[in-house]
């Protein structure tokens, strides 16, 4: 390994880190766009706090829980609090075979960690108490996520068992999705959503914000998947770019088609979720697929989205304003299983490992999240009052408005005459 190659590798890993960071803006925009105007400040506040909390707790303990370097093949390990850079080349060129430095490793992984909590934030939007959510997110991201992460990426028992999850269809997305599911079961639906008269849709307040969010997520995913190569290996990274992009594109087409067949209309929110579904779906096997396999995985993920949304929303009456369970949980499962169906590792044996691997992670995460949320529910309470919900969390929790304005600047919608 020469210094130049090490440098090129590390440059790529740092760029990937920055790209994963921007996914947090993607999530913030998407979720802000999909909630009502009166809850916009709240969701932006939560997402600003999650990335901050995520980075700090990962520095304090998460990183050493996830990559303990001990108890290989096991369920749990901990290398102590804080970060300690190995001296000299051991933290540099020799740290990861010339792929990246110790610091790069930490910061890349830290950006991932906060993602799981962000996924929950969208699902519980518009009704969860701020302090309960912040406590939940802190504990979830600093304990639950690293433990299941260690099982696979930290050389734990799933790694030993041959489970494959390239960039985290299970370890990040399904984990976030299970957390979201546990939370919305305990939390209940938004007021007025399920009435005796029927199910009332509660449209998000800004489609442009939502679309900006999805494009930024796609952009960030180049780092999320591309960085998971853990070096700048030209063929590997460029293949991942191709499979990731094609799966996202196929996800859009899949969702477009399925939602048109189901609802006879062109629903932008479905296409946007379809893109995300395709991205989540390809994530477990982005390095294993041919372009056409990537398209197949993405198209199926996209087509599943409208069905999943309607199932959660109407059949199960689980209220998820941004579709986080459909996108991250359902497509995360699908992507994990797809590794056993398509691509270089396809086979019944692999499919079986993928299945029990993802279920094991899911069972742990769901139990952890449910227990934690339940504890919060019976202690400090997890839901705002009905009146606060009606007024909106922006005023109730933040004394703010997202689009504040003084009276002297009220601007009526413009009207114009023909050119003079």
């Amino acid at each position, binding site marked *: 390994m020469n210094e130049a190659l090490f440098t090129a590798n590390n440059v790529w890993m740092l760029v990937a880190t920055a790209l994963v960071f921007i996914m947090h803006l993607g999530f913030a925009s998407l979720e802000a766009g999909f909630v009502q105007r009166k809850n916009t400040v709240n969701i932006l506040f939560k997402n600003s706090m999650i990335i901050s909390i995520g980075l700090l707790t990962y520095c304090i303990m998460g990183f050493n829980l996830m990559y303990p370097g001990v108890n290989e093949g096991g369920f749990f390990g901990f290398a102590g609090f804080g970060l300690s850079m190995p001296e000299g080349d051991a933290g540099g060129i020799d740290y990861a075979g010339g792929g990246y430095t110790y610091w790069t490793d930490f910061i890349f992984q830290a950006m991932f960690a906060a993602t799981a909590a962000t996924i929950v934030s969208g699902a519980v939007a518009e009704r969860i108490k701020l302090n309960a959510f912040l406590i939940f997110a802190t504990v979830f991201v600093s304990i639950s996520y690293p433990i299941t992460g260690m099982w696979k990426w930290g050389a734990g028992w799933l790694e030993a068992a041959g489970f494959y999850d390239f960039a985290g269809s299970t370890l990040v997305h399904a984990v976030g999705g299970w957390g979201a599911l546990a939370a919305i079961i305990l939390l209940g639906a938004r007021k007025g959503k399920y009435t005796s008269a029927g199910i009332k849709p509660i449209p*998000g307040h800004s489609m442009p914000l939502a679309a900006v969010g999805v494009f930024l997520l796609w952009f960030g995913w180049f780092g999320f998947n591309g960085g998971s190569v853990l070096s700048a290996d030209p063929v590997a990274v460029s293949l991942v770019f191709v499979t990731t992009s094609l799966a996202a594109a196929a996800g859009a087409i899949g969702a477009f088609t399925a939602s048109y067949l189901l609802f006879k209309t062109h629903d932008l929110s479905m296409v946007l979720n379809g893109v995300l579904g395709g991205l989540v779906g390809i994530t477990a096997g982005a390095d294993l697929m041919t372009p056409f396999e990537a398209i197949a995985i993405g198209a199926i993920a996209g087509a599943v989205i409208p069905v999943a949304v309607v199932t959660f929303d109407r059949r199960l009456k689980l209220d998820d304003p941004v579709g986080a369970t459909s996108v991250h949980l359902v497509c995360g499962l699908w992507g994990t299983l797809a590794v056993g169906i398509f691509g270089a590792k396809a086979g019944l044996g692999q499919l079986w490992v993928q299945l029990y691997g993802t279920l094991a992670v899911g069972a742990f995460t769901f139990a952890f999240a449910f227990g934690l949320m339940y504890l919060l529910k019976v202690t400090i309470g997890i839901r705002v009052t009905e009146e606060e919900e009606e007024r909106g969390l922006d005023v109730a929790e933040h004394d703010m408005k997202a689009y504040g304005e003084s009276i002297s600047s009220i601007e009526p919608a413009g009207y114009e005459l023909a050119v003079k």
Partner: protein
Amino acid sequence: MKKIEAIIRLSRFEKVRDALAKIGVRFFTLKDVKGFGLQKGETITYRGSTFDSDYIARLQLDILAHDDMVESIVEAILSAGRTGEVGDGKITVFAVDQVVRIRTQEEGANAI
């Protein structure tokens, strides 16, 4: 003096405005309102659920007028605002006790 309130379609606004201008109505006040009623609103789909917005956006014009102008104003709105389809709106006329122009403090008919 009378106050005329006319609820009209958005798409007829320009015609009505021009018709009013032609008969010498130089001032009016405009409000954005929503008409609820039997007329069908727009069908909206969101994340797979379809629902009906049971109103339609409308404009309300408030016009202060001398008694002898009322009839021609009503006529003007009737002819310019009509499409013949359900939902064309309504014109209502009210009696006014007093009008004052803030700038000059003129009262009554002179204030219009």
